């Protein structure tokens, strides 16, 4: 039983794990993220298993199915360590050759390496591929290097050292101060300073206090939290336990989706291992601190990612939001102080404790610190998960990492934050990735989902599409949201069918104002945001639909 009872025991265990590792032992790291699995990576994994057995190499070569490597567009991805040779679009038929040539003979197979479509130049090493080259992969960079189902792999890369430091060398007040000085802002959408939220929950009267991981990730086009949590679950758990210690909580919750079976499996295993090793449960690492975590599953409605709705759901009730005159950090689950942060926010905590707030706040812009995970999707050459420092320009994200727009099309707009976010036009592409810069433009960063739209996209149709999505996801409790969405959707549907009328835009603006002011929760108060951002930058397109009965992008049927 490897239960750890002190910081010294953790270090001894870590040294033992590292000593067992054979230096330069070849390792085949296969991405088992959602996209790669969808591309049939399961078959690639079994082909490697069979081939290693056939060549009697099982003991000499490590085979590792990992979390998302990020470069989803080119999956299935296989990386061979220690050289870090990266193969893209690997098929089961390629496996015998990879084992014979690359793993055994250390040769690069030319046809499997990444070829830059623009220049034709090849890149054999992961770090040479333009998609990866200038990223700053502080959070997701470890995913290819560990087996997400092995706590020993996490310990080998320094896991739970931040927890030991917090528990044995720092008071809760000191941890709180560190998070506040680092200026860690919530990654879930609001960008609210995590330290202030923690402090509110910590100082709020009432026991017990709860800490929660929001792993709901309901925004279409957002998939970075799932990628990170599935690929490195202990990182998030470690952040949560440190948060619990700081806030004074003995009970944590993880709220996630029911439709991601791999995440559930890795998470359940991680919790079991953390308990076995003494990082969860009574008297964590012999510090006297007690804390445990329960997993709750959403059953499939967008609104349950909203904080008060999420908490109702954990109570076993329908996930309807309540007005937040009193914040959930003061009165949340069963009316007790409840601190909610999303996956990426919690995942940032261990590195802040390990490296200090000065290090953390040296990354990023003046008011947006650290790195940000971005999920790139839509009309973009490289869909995938990118991690870059705050302040990186949108141009770099789209053209350097994303590889530009496919099929020779022109970029039209960039949409952030899904159905409650906003679109900005191509002309603002030099805007930095920054909470405040983007929200000033009317396109708040949201969870970091960046949808790229090309010239063939009709903005009226996109606005309609988001409202159609929301009409199915509104909980229906308050009238402004339930009826407002329905009316806005009706008007936009008419417009896309060529039946727009004079006055429609003014009416949409009026309804938007009412919904934005009067809806009950932050979801309801944000449903008009995409539409308003499009009015700001693409108003002529809406007018063309009404006045000229024309769809400039030639998308809407029935219009010229």
């Amino acid at each position, binding site marked *: 039983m490897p239960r750890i009872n002190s910081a010294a025991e953790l270090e001894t265990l870590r040294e033992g794990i590292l000593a067992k590792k054979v230096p330069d032992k070849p390792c085949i790291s296969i991405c088992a993220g*959602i*996209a790669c*699995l*969808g*591309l049939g990576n399961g078959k690639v994994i079994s082909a490697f298993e069979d081939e290693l057995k056939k060549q009697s190499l099982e003991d000499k070569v490590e085979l590792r199915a990992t979390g998302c490597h990020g470069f*989803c*567009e080119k*999956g299935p991805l296989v990386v061979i360590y220690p050289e870090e040779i990266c193969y893209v679009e690997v098929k089961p038929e390629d496996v015998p050759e990879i084992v014979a040539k690359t793993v055994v003979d250390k040769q690069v197979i030319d046809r499997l390496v990444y070829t830059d479509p623009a220049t034709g130049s090849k890149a054999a090493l992961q770090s040479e591929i333009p998609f990866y080259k200038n990223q700053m992969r502080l959070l997701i960079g470890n995913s290819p290097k560990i087996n997400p189902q092995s706590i020993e792999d996490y310990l080998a890369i320094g896991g739970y050292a931040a927890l030991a430091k917090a528990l044995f060398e720092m008071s809760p007040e000191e941890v709180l101060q560190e998070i506040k000085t680092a200026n860690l802002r919530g990654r879930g959408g609001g960008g609210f300073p995590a330290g202030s939220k923690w402090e509110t929950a910590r100082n709020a009267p009432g026991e017990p206090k709860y800490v929660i991981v929001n792993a709901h*990730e*309901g*925004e*279409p*086009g*957002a*998939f970075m939290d*799932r*990628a990170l949590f599935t690929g490195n679950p202990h990182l998030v758990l470690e952040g949560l336990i440190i948060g619990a210690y700081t806030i004074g909580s003995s009970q944590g919750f993880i709220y996630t989706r*029911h*439709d*991601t079976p791999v995440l559930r499996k890795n998470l359940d295993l991680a919790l079991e291992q953390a308990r076995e090793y003494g990082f969860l449960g009574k008297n964590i690492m012999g510090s006297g601190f007690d804390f445990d975590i329960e997993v*709750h*599953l959403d*059953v*499939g*409605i*967008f609104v349950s990612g909203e904080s008060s709705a999420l908490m109702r*759901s954990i*109570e*076993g*009730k*329908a*996930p309807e939001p309540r007005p937040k005159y009193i914040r959930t950090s003061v009165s949340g689950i069963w009316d007790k102080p409840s601190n909610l942060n999303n996956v990426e926010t919690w995942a940032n905590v261990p590195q802040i404790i390990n490296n200090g707030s000065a290090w953390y706040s040296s990354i990023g812009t003046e008011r947006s610190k650290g790195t940000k995970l971005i*999920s790139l*999707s*839509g*009309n973009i050459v490289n*869909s*995938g998960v990118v991690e870059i420092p705050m302040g990186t320009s949108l141009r770099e994200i789209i053209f350097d990492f994303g590889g530009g727009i496919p099929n020779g099309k022109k970029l039209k707009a960039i*949409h952030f934050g*899904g*159905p409650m976010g906003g679109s900005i036009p191509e002309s603002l592409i030099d805007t930095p990735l920054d909470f405040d810069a983007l929200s000033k433009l009317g396109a708040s960063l949201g969870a970091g989902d960046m*949808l790229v*739209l090309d010239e063939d*996209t009709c903005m009226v149709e*996109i606005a309609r*599409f*988001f409202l159609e*999505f929301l009409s*199915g996801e509104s*909980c229906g409790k308050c009238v402004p949201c339930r009826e407002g969405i329905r009316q806005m959707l009706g008007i936009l549907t008419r417009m896309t069918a060529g039946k727009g009328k004079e006055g429609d835009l003014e009416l949409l603006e009026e309804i938007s104002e009412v919904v934005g002011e009067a809806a009950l929760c932050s979801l309801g108060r944000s449903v008009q945001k995409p539409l308003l951002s499009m009015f700001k930058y693409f108003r002529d397109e809406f007018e063309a639909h009404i006045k000229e009965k024309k769809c400039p992008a030639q998308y809407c049927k029935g219009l010229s």
Partner: protein
Amino acid sequence: MNNERIDHILDEHQGNPGALIQVMMEIQEENHWLPREVMVKISEKLDVPLSRVLRIATFYKTFSLTPKGRHKIHVCTGTACQVRGAQQVLNEVQELTGIKPGETDPDLKFSLETVNCQGCCSLGPMVEIDGETHGKTSPAEIADALKKYE
């Protein structure tokens, strides 16, 4: 319907109203739909009014109050799939199966659902049939794939 499995799920959470959603989801996963007599049982075992069980059952799209087909088709209509042509794919599936999202055909062969972003946007447009992913698909490709199912 496997009554033994359902009873086992209920016994595990007996008298715990907070586990309502969890229990309903486990039964949905096991049985693929929630017959009325099962909901009555849930209400009795967990000590929750039947009205609340019905409220949860009708609130979430995941719960089904009618039996499901042998094959489940999930068409992703998340934004990324949408801008890459998910609507045309969905139209084709509706045409071929004769059912709309949320419906099951009379022979209980197919159930069709639209789903929001499954997190593999690089594969858009994406359709899942019985858990098998069909990525970067087209109306013609999906029509071909559907022929395989009995």
